């Protein structure tokens, strides 16, 4: 097999005609008839070039309006570039939008037929693949319902199921993984993993850098229609993140740094034991959590307490804001909270006692500190917590 790229884009530019005023459309039509270029244009993309070879995967990242979707549309041939050219080889499957072209009045099955045909599947191929599509979409009897009755998640399922059955040489997706429930997202990622492992090629637009880094090896960072960075996915996404953070910093007046959050947990003392070590408490005993939080701007933070089982299962949590308890100022940006649990109802086992620092409004969590607690004692009951209870006698 020759090493020709599946996608080759050279100097791509896209400029849309301005259509703000009423007469713009008529004059644009006149320009088209005479074969002239439109006079007033907005440039969406300038000088973008890249190559994707078979088996590679490329992510396109950037802020909203950076031209990512336009670039994908140019690659699929839905849009015609104003300058430059793009060349694709082999079958291209595009998921530019969930359920693109699904007709709301028609049933899922009818839409699958059209969608499959649009992706280059003829009737025989579709008939062979239909069970696979049904199984992947997993929407049961909804397949014969009009698509307008679908939830957005079901539309994605169906759209992705068609693509999975088509299995194009190059798959182009635009932020489609963001919809759908966790289970389906995992199914899609699994499918994509397997697709990539078996030699598939992916062109992906996503705001989820997790997905980008997991699925792609190289990336393009578009900024205001131009390539800001191009190359290895980790390098590009780190530069992108750094730029995002710098921008956020510029927006918020307070000088923020990642090293020191605005609110932090200074120390947690449990039953008088300071430090980070484990604490032993007898079941039914008393626990006093003495927490010092630090606030950089001197505003009083909110403290969030949490009990978590050793395996991570949450047991109980309460915040100072819920109970309307004010922080005790210690001066120098430090605030103290003391929380007491009399007669701890937890059954013996290992737990973590958590203390978190939230902002004054109790909305954002900035810092968390866990300490191990083992609750000792003997109990024949089951579960985590001893619930208050009594047995009723015959006369009650």
């Amino acid at each position, binding site marked *: 097999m020759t090493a020709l790229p599946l996608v080759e884009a050279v100097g791509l530019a896209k400029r*849309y*005609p301005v*259509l703000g005023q009423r007469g713009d*459309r*008529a004059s*644009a*039509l006149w320009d*088209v*008839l005479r*074969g002239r270029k*439109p006079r007033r244009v907005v440039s969406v993309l300038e000088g973008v070039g890249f190559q994707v070879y078979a088996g590679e995967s490329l992510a396109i990242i950037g802020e909203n309006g950076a031209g990512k979707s336009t670039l994908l*549309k140019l690659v*699929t*041939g*839905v*849009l*015609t570039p104003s300058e430059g050219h793009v060349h*694709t080889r082999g*079958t*291209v*499957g*595009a998921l*530019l*939008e969930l359920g*693109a*072209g699904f*007709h709301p*009045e*028609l049933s899922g099955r*009818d839409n699958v*037929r*059209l969608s*499959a*045909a*649009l*992706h*280059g*599947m*003829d*009737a025989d191929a*579709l008939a062979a693949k239909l069970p696979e599509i049904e199984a992947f979409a997993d929407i049961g009897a909804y397949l014969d319902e009009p698509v307008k009755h679908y939830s957005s998640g079901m539309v994605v399922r169906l759209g992705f199921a068609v693509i999975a059955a088509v299995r194009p040489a190059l798959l182009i997706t635009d932020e489609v993984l963001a919809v759908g429930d966790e289970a389906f997202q995992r199914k899609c990622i699994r499918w994509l993993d397997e697709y990539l492992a078996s030699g598939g090629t992916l062109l992906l637009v996503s705001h989820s850098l997790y997905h980008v880094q997991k699925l792609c090896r190289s990336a393009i960072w578009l900024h205001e229609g131009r390539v800001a960075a191009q190359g290895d996915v980790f390098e590009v996404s780190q530069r992108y993140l750094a730029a995002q953070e710098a921008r956020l910093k510029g927006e918020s007046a307070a000088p923020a740094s990642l090293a020191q959050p605005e609110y932090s947990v200074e120390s947690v003392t449990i039953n008088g034991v300071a430090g980070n070590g484990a604490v032993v408490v007898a079941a039914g005993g008393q626990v006093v959590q003495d927490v010092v939080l630090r606030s950089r701007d001197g505003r009083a933070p909110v403290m969030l307490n949490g009990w978590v089982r050793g395996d991570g299962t949450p047991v109980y949590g309460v915040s100072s804001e819920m109970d309307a308890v004010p922080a005790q100022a210690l001066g120098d940006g430090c605030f103290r909270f003391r929380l007491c649990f009399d007669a701890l109802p937890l059954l013996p086992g290992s737990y973590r006692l958590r203390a978190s620092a939230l902002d004054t409004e109790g909305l954002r969590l900035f810092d968390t500190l866990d300490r191990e607690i083992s609750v000792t004692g003997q109990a024949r009951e089951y579960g985590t917590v001893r619930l208050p209870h009594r047995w009723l006698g015959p006369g009650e």
Partner: protein
Amino acid sequence: MVPATRAVFRELLRRELEERYRGSLLGAAWLVLLPLLQLAVLAWVFGQLMPARAHAGTLPYAAFLALGLWPWNLFANAANRGVTALTDNAALIGKVAVPHTLYVDARVAASVAVDLAGFVLVLAVLLAFGVGLAPWGLPGAAAGLAVVAVYALAAARLLAVLQVFLRDIAAVIGQLLVLGFFLTPILYDRSLLPAAAAKWLALNPLVAPVETVRRALSGDAPDWVALGLSLAVGAVLLLLANAFFRRARSHLEDFL
């Protein structure tokens, strides 16, 4: 992307047809009922309510009217529906790279198929009621209808692209088609017009094919020269429409 063009066309066509009577109680039965109802209304209005005669021929007026009306509708419905073929499919056009003509062609094909089936049905009913139609005129009628179809396709392609740029087209075209209806000898026979008016009417290229269908089916010899001329004009129009479509193709998405 290489869509299976034929499969796409078939699916689009199926969608056009299914959409038409979706959600109605009788569904596809309307395809049969509608032309019959239309014919019954014509027969009652012009047979009972206000008996009319169009020309010296032997045909009842309702049959005379039907022979002109269905060929005209073949054109008018296709043009009228075709105008919005691209704008209606904007969501699809913006997402999938398929030759744009498919959307227009599928819509025209669906419209023509429905009207053609209706016409055949109407002819069958007329024959069953003993109206003296000439079955040997069928090839001539088919030729006339084919020319009408060429115009339908040309008009739909041209108008659909124009509509993308100027959304006013759809509003205007409805009225223009009404005007066209009266400027084509459907309600009347051209021989009844004053000579001066009849001459100008010949400029309407749809006169020849519509008249051809009627003359052929009522047993008269069609005017082949006029039909050939009309076909030539129609073919040029279709070529122009295609050229326009090609030129505008790369700009369509920017305006949808």
